[in-house]
């Protein structure tokens, strides 16, 4: 009985240290011992919306160069975030399908913001011919801070794998030659100005990246992506024209 009780006492103490904001009290238990016990089973983080809640919208738009009739053409932008978010708006039981584009955009923006100006200039160039991913990475690393470049290249690979799916769904995989995405963040009207009819939202922050080759990961089922994305896209088109 004592053994069980002592174990639970340890569990509660460890949970307390893990859940509470970091404080000098954590020195009582070696950090490795604490994380070794808590992870992965008791992994959690409760700094949700703290110290400041989110106050802006992330978006990702996608366009492509297509080659349907033997002639290359640039498509219109498709707002993937709008398509997905429409699944969760005014829906008491929203599917998590509505969150992917938002997460892709927010992760990409986060890693792009950490880059230096030199890196960002490179990101704005076009890279789509053979070996473009490693050439882009090499060029960026020429300007130092390889760990930031690694994080960015990873986020970009994800954004491109997503954008490629959007492009395939919209214009057909066989037609898409290369893609471009546009990630933005725009803050909301500040609380104090919410009743001001003149109030405008702060300017849109852009992530500027060039044209890229498509990225398709092994095992990706483009049809499964297309089914949902196109259905939802057509749904909001119809609602828009009503």
């Amino acid at each position, binding site marked *: 009985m004592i053994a069980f009780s002592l174990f639970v006492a340890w569990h509660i103490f460890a949970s307390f240290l893990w859940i509470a904001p970091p404080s000098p009290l954590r020195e009582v238990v070696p950090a490795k011992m604490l994380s070794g016990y808590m992870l*992965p089973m*008791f992994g959690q983080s*409760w700094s*949700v*919306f703290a110290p400041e809640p989110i106050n802006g919208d992330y978006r990702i738009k996608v366009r492509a160069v297509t080659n349907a009739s033997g002639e290359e053409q640039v498509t219109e932008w498709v707002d993937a975030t709008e398509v997905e978010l429409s699944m969760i708006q005014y829906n008491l039981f929203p599917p998590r399908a509505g969150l992917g584009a938002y997460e892709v955009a927010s992760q990409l923006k986060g890693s792009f913001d950490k880059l230096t100006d030199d890196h960002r200039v490179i990101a704005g160039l076009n890279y789509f011919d053979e070996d473009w991913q490693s050439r882009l990475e090499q060029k960026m690393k020429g300007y130092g801070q390889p760990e930031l470049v690694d994080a960015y290249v990873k986020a970009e690979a994800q954004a491109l794998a997503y954008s490629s799916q959007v492009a395939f769904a919209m214009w057909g995989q066989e037609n898409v030659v290369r893609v471009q995405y546009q990630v933005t963040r725009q803050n909301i009207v500040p609380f104090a100005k919410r009743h001001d009819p003149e109030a405008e939202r702060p300017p849109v922050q852009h992530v500027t990246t060039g044209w890229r080759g498509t990225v398709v990961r092994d095992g990706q089922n483009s049809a*499964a*992506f297309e*089914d949902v994305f196109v259905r939802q896209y057509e749904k909001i088109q119809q609602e828009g024209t009503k």
Partner: protein
Amino acid sequence: MTKQHLPQTNRPIRTAWIFLKLLFSHLVGIAKTVVVSIASALDSWLLDSRKALYGIAVTRMLLGLSALGLLLSNYSTRLYSFGSGSVWNGEVIEPKSDFPKIWLFSLFHRAITNDYTYSLLYIALIALAVLVIVGWRTRIVLPAFLVMWVSFIEANDMLGDQGDNMFRIAVLIMLFMDTSRRWSFDAKRRDKQKSSADQSVPGQLGNLLHNLGLVALTAQVCFVYASGALYKAGGAPWSGGYAVYNPLQTERFGTWPVLSDFVTSWGPMVAVATWGSIIIQFAFVFLLLTRPTRIIGLIGILSFHIGIAVLMGLPWFSLTMVAIDSIFIRDRTWKGMSARVQHLALKARTLASGAASREI
């Protein structure tokens, strides 16, 4: 000559010494009694019976309902968000969570690229959630459900939220508890067999594990609320009393824009909601201590969660939290509620049959 004086000069010191000794042994006696009675109270609280059996049964049902709700509301888009349509997120090659790397929890992760297997597993998980709700063979079903659930939800880190963590931790603790003693198929079956072994040695061990689980779950949820408040308290929008406005104005967390504008229109209400969130979270553990304040605490936290569920589009996160808070409602209150519902049902039935017989 000095020898004669010694006892005289020493007498007051001696008296004081004896007094102190007596006092000390008396105090030790009191301390011993206190320790012994606390220990025996603790002993009997831990060993004599299982506490909050109705509350934990409600927790089981609501957690099952939360899982079922999440699975059903994602059913038609499951391949897009979690299955073969979501391989672009890179988790098939390099999972972000540790769970897919653990054999038992890699079930769903391994099935992502196979639509047929994935859907089969998904439907099996739905079935397990239903069995958890009705409390059928819980000792076997609940561990199986936990393994499958974790393997499902952790295979995609990108779309997860903290509700998933809370859910996993709560169900893990509940494996050591008696969650189907009340309001379950297990209870019905046991009633027929009429075997109650609460006072036997294995029965006492069961009581101990159940009650320790209850303590751990209580600590978990209280820490979560209190630390949530501490984290927030430092932020300017929170201390400024307008923090709830911000997420409600974004597209991601303001899923009912018209409603968001409506509830954030009147400033004082925004401040009440903002500060109220912090106060109710921080005060929750203290409010639990007495019955009248407990009622205030539970109603407060329930409205907090209903707000999150509806306005921010996080119903399953909220239901998970509400499910766990159910353990703080006394068995007597749950029994009373159930009796009232049964009474109403009976009344409705007699009224209906009365009406039916009149029609004939």
